[in-house]
């Protein structure tokens, strides 16, 4: 994977809009065949990065390559090999969903007819309805079907499921997996961690126009903590000051000892041993989620009062 030419490579990207610095030295690399999660809170610069990568806007500084070419100069040629779903899906209100699908499909190049029909079924879209009568989720479906039915090497999806219900989200994930198995690369921007967790091979997390961390999910998880909830017969010995353990709490419940704590990956084995000695009654081990990763990443970067909730944009601080 590392020897092949990356599908997208961006290095030290900067982009300023007047006094606003939207991108501030951002790095991003998407390898062929991978689903790359692109995570960050609202206003972190995800859409700006994508627009630079697509050659819709020009970077103020840094270097960007799309399929090894310059997206600003060769936009139309390079676009033959990708399909894009914008963050805010806007369609022509007077056209039907099916007509918009075909227009978008023609924009992107070749639309696979069987896949188009299959996806319309799968997403339960009524293609004869006018776009102005569609809900937000249905408009989103039109853009998604157009992109997923296209015969391309790369899918660029900017917060693609923001209007979909959980069932449709499930369908979306299945289709993306199938496309990946067929060899398609995906850049998936999102602030919904579950979705990225379910799909992504590698993840880049950005904040305030900078890449904070990047790697495979396994790599990233190594730096995060596992949550443990254990009920034991005896009091587990020496847990409180075991290395790598934090947030410890313990109480007596119905003659058993209930312990809760979190532990880093390197010390998990030792601690489970200690629990075993105290005779395990029930044990729940929750692996680190991207939520932990997300919050932890931001924790390190910003002062405490400044930790953003996932849905809270930076504007909330002002």
């Amino acid at each position, binding site marked *: 994977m590392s020897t092949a030419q990356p599908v997208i490579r961006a290095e030290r990207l900067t982009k300023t809009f007047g006094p606003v610095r939207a991108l501030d030295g951002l790095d991003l690399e998407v390898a062929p065949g991978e689903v790359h999660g692109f995570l960050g809170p609202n206003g972190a610069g995800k859409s700006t990065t994508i627009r630079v990568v697509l050659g819709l806007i020009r970077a103020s500084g840094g270097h960007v390559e799309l399929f090894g070419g310059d997206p600003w100069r060769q936009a139309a040629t390079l676009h033959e090999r990708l399909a894009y779903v914008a963050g805010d899906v806007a369609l*022509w*209100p007077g056209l039907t969903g099916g007509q918009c699908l075909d227009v978008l499909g023609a924009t992107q190049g070749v639309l696979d007819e069987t896949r188009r029909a299959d996806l319309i079924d799968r997403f339960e879209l009524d293609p004869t309805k006018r776009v102005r009568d569609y809900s937000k989720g249905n408009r989103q479906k039109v853009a998604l079907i157009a992109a997923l039915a296209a015969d391309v090497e790369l899918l660029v999806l900017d917060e693609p499921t923001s209007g979909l219900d959980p069932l449709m989200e499930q369908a979306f994930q299945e289709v993306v997996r199938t496309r990946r198995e067929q060899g398609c690369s995906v850049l998936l921007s999102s602030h919904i961690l579950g979705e990225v967790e379910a799909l992504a091979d590698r993840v880049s997390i950005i904040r305030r126009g900078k890449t904070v961390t990047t790697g495979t999910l396994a790599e990233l998880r190594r730096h995060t903590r596992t949550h443990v909830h254990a009920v034991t017969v005896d009091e587990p010995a020496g847990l409180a000051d075991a290395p790598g353990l934090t947030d410890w709490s313990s109480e007596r419940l119905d003659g058993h000892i209930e312990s809760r704590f979190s532990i880093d990956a390197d010390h998990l084995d030792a601690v489970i041993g200690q629990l075993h000695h105290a005779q395990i009654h029930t044990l729940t081990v929750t692996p680190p989620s991207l939520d932990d990763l997300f919050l932890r990443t931001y924790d390190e970067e910003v002062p405490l009062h400044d930790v953003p909730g996932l849905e809270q944009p930076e504007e909330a601080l002002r």
Partner: protein
Amino acid sequence: MRATGLRTMLGVHWRTHRSGTLVWILALIASMVGTAAAVAGLYTTPEKIHTYAAAVTTGSALVAINGRVEGIDSLGGVIQDESGFLMALLLPLLGISLVAKVTRREEEDGRLEAVLGGRVARYVPVLAGLIDASAAILVTALAFTLGITFCGVPAVRSALYAASLGGLAFVFAGLAALVAQITRHSRGVYAWSLLVLTVAYLLRGVGDVTKTWVTWLSPLGWAEKAAPFGAMRWWTLLIPLAVGGLLCAAAVLIAGRRDLGSSLVRGRPGSARASAWLRSPVGLATYIHSPAVLGWLAGALIIAGMMGALAKQFVGAVTGNPAMADAIGMSTAHPEDGFVAVTQLYIAIIAMGYAVQAVGSLRGEETAGRLEPRLSGTLSRMGWIAAHGLVIVTGLVIIVAVSSVVLAASTAWSMGTPLHLARVIGAGAAYLPAELLVGGLALALFGLWPRAFPAGWAVFAIVAFIAFLGPGLKLATWVLDLAPTTHIGNPPLGTVKALPLIVLSALAALLAATAAVGFRHRGVPRG
């Protein structure tokens, strides 16, 4: 019923729409007071006024266009006549646009939902919109009164004149508010209101020409019958107040009772597939621009048909009255040519308005977020703008050609003479470079400074003002020269010289090229 949230809504409207509203009011005041001042400067003696009055009351054509002004033999009467056509168009538009912006447009874009989710009663946004519009109309009317009085017209008469125009705007504000409750889209509000305005204009025209009660059927007629410079019928102001008030009440009542986002007119299902034509860049561009082409073409056809139908009376009036010919700047040697020339200028301004609006819809595609996905495919920016340019220019040619044919046909029918098709079409075609120049300017704004696009409409307004009223008001030559239409040579009455056409065409091409280069190098979308 308590108007919960009325103060909040008024505050919201003020904050979000004040600049647009102020521009509207200032533009109206400038054109009204400007016209009045120019008339006052031109018709300085009773003799001059008398000559003018004698000229325009002979024959029916000018009566049909500007209205039958009672008391035309006075300074105020001349002002009312000179601004008759423009004010009949602009004041209803003021009422319509102020209301449409804050009612159906807000609902369509989903902002009304957010507002009604708060402590605002359902009917309050409409009520607030009508209060805004009424306030704007009141301010405009007061400024009209002051401005016209300042030009030397008795204050009482100025006040009645301004009030009659304010009443006209109020009727159309109420109409737009009602239509906004029963159509689904703000485009529909404009379409239906403008249709009513067209009918009102035709009824007033028919009534004035035939001197019958038909005039009383039209809101434009009510304003005219106030006769501010004649008999001064103050009581006629009650008609627009009552009708406008009823329309407003109906709108507020319906708004309080209907569901959010619902209306009487519903969309039907359509085709599940796009044709190969619609999928092509030119095909989609055609789809995007055809409503504008049809709308402006309809406007041009109404003018061409109406003017053509009145050709005989018009020509008869001119051949019998050299003073009138002089007043509207045509010679008696070619009365029919002069008549076609006047109409072709109207059509040229309409075509120019179409060009600006069509370029504006490119900007609309961008701000709506549809340009971004369009350019993220295999279509290059040059390809996109070229496809749209081709369609816009084709639409322009269609508007000019079709309305020229209709003008030629209706004139021939009215005069009972054979068609002079080539002559009429040639005159229309001669204006194309001027129309392209203004369109090119709008396109350059879109390519280079998209946010400044509204300046394109300002240019259009200035050109239209100079073209319509400049010669009549005898504005300075350098002012007249600012409008590209001045350089065409008033065909078929005057002779068209090649050089100005070439220069205008070259400038238009240069602007289009600049636009393309600018568009090629800027970020998309730019907010």
